[in-house]
């Protein structure tokens, strides 16, 4: 079972790969759109990446609620629990 820190670290690498956002900027309180400047297409690719890297499914209804990095980490934790 991955810790929150491990999930955040993997997620930060994913966000870097997709959107070129520095890993250290990907913090729990950051908004994907407003703080990290990630557009809707990049967000879709991050969702696809989350599904692959963490082995979880993120339905569109849920994806819409993942506004911050913290939202995503919490979702992944709960989906894997």
């Amino acid at each position, binding site marked *: 079972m991955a810790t929150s820190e491990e999930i955040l670290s993997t997620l930060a690498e994913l966000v870097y*790969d997709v959107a070129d956002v520095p890993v250290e900027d990907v913090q729990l309180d950051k908004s994907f759109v407003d703080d990290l400047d990630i557009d809707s297409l990049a967000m879709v690719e991050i969702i696809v990446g989350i599904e692959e890297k963490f082995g979880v499914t993120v339905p569109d209804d849920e994806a819409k609620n993942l506004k911050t990095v913290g939202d995503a980490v919490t979702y992944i934790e709960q989906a894997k629990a």
Partner: protein
Amino acid sequence: MTLLARTGARYARILGVGRALPSRVVDNAEMCTYIDSSDEWIRQRTGIVERRWIADGESVETLARDASLEAIANSGVAPADIDAVIVSTVSYFHQTPGLAPKLAFQLGAIGAAAYDISAACAGFCYAIAQAEALIRSGAATHVLVVGAETLSRLTDLSDRSTAFLFADGAGAVVIGPSDVNGISPVVWGSDGEAGPTIHQATDWEGAVRDQTWPYIWMDGRQVFRWASGFVADAALDILEKSGLTPDDLDTFIPHQANNRITDAMLRHLKLPEHVKVARSIVNYGNNSAASIPIAMSEMLASGEAKSGDTALIIGFGAGLVYAGQVVTLP
């Protein structure tokens, strides 16, 4: 009584490729007179700088003919030796007869088996799979495969989520027998459950009854999700079925749906730096079944790709349908 069977060539390969683009250039500035958008937004979201639409005197028929003439000339095959013609299109508005018989006649492929297929943006790769099978089974010797579209005729210019994408054009290849294999096993399939993801807003009956038009409607977000995940996985499967690794590729020619989809696929495939990637969407937009042969022809003409190069091609679109192969460039 014993039914006779026949066998054909051991292998098939592409012998020549051609393209035809309409004369009218529609840049993003003109596009933004139809929709509330901006050049910057369109470029950032799609990579498209300009697209081509047919002008007076041009049609899906003239584009198909011109692309075919170039492909036949480049192949060195006499038109009379082409014994099958497959046209992939979703924008030839005569439901019957199909475009292929007329095209075969115009080109001098007199008497060739000729039919249209409808597999949207995957249509070119679907038709390549058919051509390869026809040649190897002995049902045909030289097959002309054409992707021809005038999507401008199905574009809703009030839909700011799709209007800037769709475009017109045609590409064609001649495929024939070969001593060495030039077309890998196809990887293909469909997902009809997700059909509504890309569909026409109405059928012809509804269009006539309601005085509307059967525009193409698309859920871009869903298409992006499918293409960057499932379709990218299919591309890896093509490599595996071909017995190749990404290092063996020279060229990657995905359907030109959106540069951002191509970028996402590249991240997924982890192709090495030396692989040249088709980006013809920048100047030609998304012309569905025509996009792969147009890009192939452009890359060869510009010298970016060379005859004999190993290219991964993959198409995906309305259906949903997808198909792809590894091919040796002519």
